[in-house]
């Protein structure tokens, strides 16, 4: 599998992502500067977490206008796989590749803590190593993760089963208390209609090692890497 991690100025979780991908695939991902536009030979594009352009104006707004994002849009149109985590998710919505937007956390504070995610469907390359309804833990670290879309869009996402993960209790209940940032319908991550683009706010890449407190995030990368290796 040839994975590429896009580096926008101000991105800062690219190393975490590279470690996770290398651990699951055995290959170092390529690092792609935001001005590059050639994605040939790449199977997976990752937009990692961080503060592209300082998160000034709106999170992801300026990165969404980078030259590389034109190439990513074409890549998506050709059926390419794209994973956007945290700032990467924000960039995908700002670029219009995924619907909705990420607003400030409801409590208006940055939140860095572990959350629990319920797997809404397991028949995707990203979730194949989880079971549907399974709950896994992941660190979250963001100030703007409050997923918003209008009701029609939310209904469509539900109808087409494009919700990837929801904030849940450890037992899998979808409650308000489990919904740390106030996201619409507890949405933590969504898919594109072809299920090849995934955007999510929490950081499975930071929970892949028992030493750091667990390996809950590892199945996501194991599943992804083995599916794309084939």
């Amino acid at each position: 599998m040839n994975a590429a991690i896009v580096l926008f100025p101000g991105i800062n979780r690219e190393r975490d992502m590279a470690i996770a991908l290398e651990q699951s695939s055995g290959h170092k991902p390529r690092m792609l500067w935001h001005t590059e536009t050639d994605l040939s030979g790449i199977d997976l594009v990752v937009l990692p977490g961080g503060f592209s352009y300082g998160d000034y104006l709106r999170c992801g707004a300026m990165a969404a206008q980078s030259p590389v994002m034109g190439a990513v849009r074409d890549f998506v149109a050709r059926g390419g796989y794209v994973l956007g985590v945290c700032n990467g998710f924000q960039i995908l919505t700002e670029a219009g590749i995924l619907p909705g937007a990420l607003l400030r956390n409801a409590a208006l504070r940055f939140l860095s803590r572990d959350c629990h995610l319920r797997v809404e469907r397991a028949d995707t390359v990203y979730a194949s190593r989880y079971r549907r309804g399974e709950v896994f833990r992941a660190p979250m670290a963001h100030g703007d993760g409050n997923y918003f879309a209008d009701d029609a869009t939310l209904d469509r996402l539900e109808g087409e089963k494009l919700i990837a993960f929801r904030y849940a209790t450890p037992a899998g209940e979808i409650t308000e208390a489990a919904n740390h940032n106030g996201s619409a319908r507890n949405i933590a991550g969504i898919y594109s209609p072809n299920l090849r683009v995934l955007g999510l706010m929490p950081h499975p890449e930071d929970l892949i090692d028992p030493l750091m407190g667990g390996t809950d995030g590892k199945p996501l990368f194991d599943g992804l890497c083995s599916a794309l290796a084939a």
Partner: protein
Amino acid sequence: MSARPVNQALAQEFGLSGEEYAKVLAIMGRTPTLTELGVFSVMWSEHCSYKSSRVWLKQLPTKAPWVIHGPGENAGVVDIGDGLAAIFKMESHNHPSFIEPYQGAATGVGGILRDVFTMGARPIANLNALRFGRPENPHTKRIVDGVVRGIGGYGNCVGVPTVGGEIDFHSAYDGNPLVNAMTVGIAPTDRIFLSAAAGVGNPVVYVGSKTGRDGIHGATMASAEFGANSEEKRPTVQVGDPFTEKLLIEACLELMATDAIVAIQDMGAAGLTSSSVEMAGKGGVGIELDLDAVPQRETGMTAYEMMLSESQERMLIVLRPDRAEQARAIFAKWELDFAVIGRITDTGRIVVRHQGTVEADIALAPLADEAPLYTRPTAETAKQPILNAARLDNRHGLADALLMLVGCPDLCSRAWVWDQYDSTIGGQTVKRPGAADAAVVRIEGLDRALALTTDCTPRYCAADAEAGGAQAVAEAWRNLTAVGARPLAITDNMNFGNPEKPEVMGQFAAAIRGMSQACRVLDFPVVSGNVSLYNETEGRPILPTPAIGGLGVLEEAARAVGLALGPWLDLVLIGETKGWLGQSLWLREIAGKEEGAPPPVDLAAERRNGDFVRGQIEAGRVRACHDVSDGGLLVAVAEMAMAGGTGARLSAGPRDVPGHAFWFGEDQGRYVLAVTDSAATIAAAEAAGVPAIRLGYSGGEDLTLPDGGTISVKALRDAHERFFPAWMDAPSG
């Protein structure tokens, strides 16, 4: 610039005494220009010259076989094995954080990061030591909110995990909060960058943000030329730009991977002045600056303004001439300003030109060598009597007192704070805030990890600064030991009041004495630090606060232990308990008194106990470990229970110590270990000459106390977690 005559009156406005100004005249042999006076005044300020503290700082032990660079560089450097060095320092941003808490704290983090990456290190962790006024004080809430947001806002954005720190509240900080920020970075031992300039003719390069009129010497605020600016008084507050800092880190590290750099230094306090003067001075060379080439954010800036500006996110670099273009390309890629603003000379002078005029021409040697140095008068603070625990009124049972203590502002959960700091970025955080006595961060790609902590107990220092200084160092050492790390070195941040007051200077000197003794006995040298004086409002000084940042190493990250208690383990107390209640939190929170002598630190016992505990951890015999500090033994056990979600049953303490003194006394040098076989641990301790007793065992959902009282772990957690959210998120002003 409007002609303000340079004379003694202006010098005084700039903070120079009559005697100091006479020295300036002697060195110059003429009346200095405004810019020259500015250079002298900032270089000879307390902040840059350490004129009141230097004689005392010299007493600190700074050497050990593993110390690569001690004080004198931008940050301290220690060898941590595998060809790597840890580079770290702590720095204060107290006054700015009082004026504008968010930006003050944010730029404090930015400043200390630069001190560390300027030496070639990639920053891997931030910590902070914070002191605030009483929660009841109407200003405190706003300051806490701003400082916490500012630290998070900057650290989260630059992508360095904030993994630890400490917070105290006391009325002495009502008008003067302390914000001490610490950064730790990693570099190969053979790729460490220093600031001494060299190479006559080499270009001097400015990189980073443009220069504005930020934070220029407060004295100029009153001067005439800003009168036109109507009511918009120029703020002394700088705004941080963490995005630019992140680019600067990456660009500098990219440049450092080449052989282009001869010397590099961040522009910290007194910006271009101190960086250029120090680089040339340390290298024994001269330097010429052409201010027309300085990237400027505002129009019409004078030489004086540019030399004194404290605009953030800037660095000064001396380059090999044949590498200048390569360097320029790197900074262009990162969209940062890059300008050749001068060159190295052999004159031993700093010469500053602006618009065709020589604005400053000063010999560097006397500027440094003749900097004022004061041995200010000191006065001892009277020692307080040792309290007799048995005579103290003990109205509350253990359970009630414990619930009150775990919920009080100084002991309650800080989760509300650290939840706003990204502690996991980097993917190497083995022990996050709250998980262990020290934060543990693995070094990417290796088994090795660093343990990090900050410590100080100001109420002890106020009662007895020498004992308090020793205690602060000992507690840092103990916290590193409690996770299984080998303590290597410390950085310190000496926060005190007005040094011209003999009592304050006496506290300073005593704290240094105590710290020095502890550093010596514990083999724990000081490798960097910072001094912040004049922390007073309306003549009332803060508590003496020598904040200690400790660093230790673990060969194997997997061996680190935390404080979370698991079920069915024996609890063993290491160290001797006399029941010391003087200056304890029990005394303050339960008995309502702040008095008595603070607990003494027996440094030999400290070392013996700690070495024993570390040995047990290294041998894999310890499941959880927690040092006994604020609040005493019962609070320590309760914290372990809350962290692990497991209860415990405690047996009665020794008969010769009153119950409340045994369980809440703050005797030093103690640890609680959770082990599978207490008999073996106690036997090993006896063999090592270390006091050890079994306290009880863990399990269940309740903490059962020796006097028969019972508290559920849930009730403890509720009490522990209530304060911060209730205080900060309650809808009020």
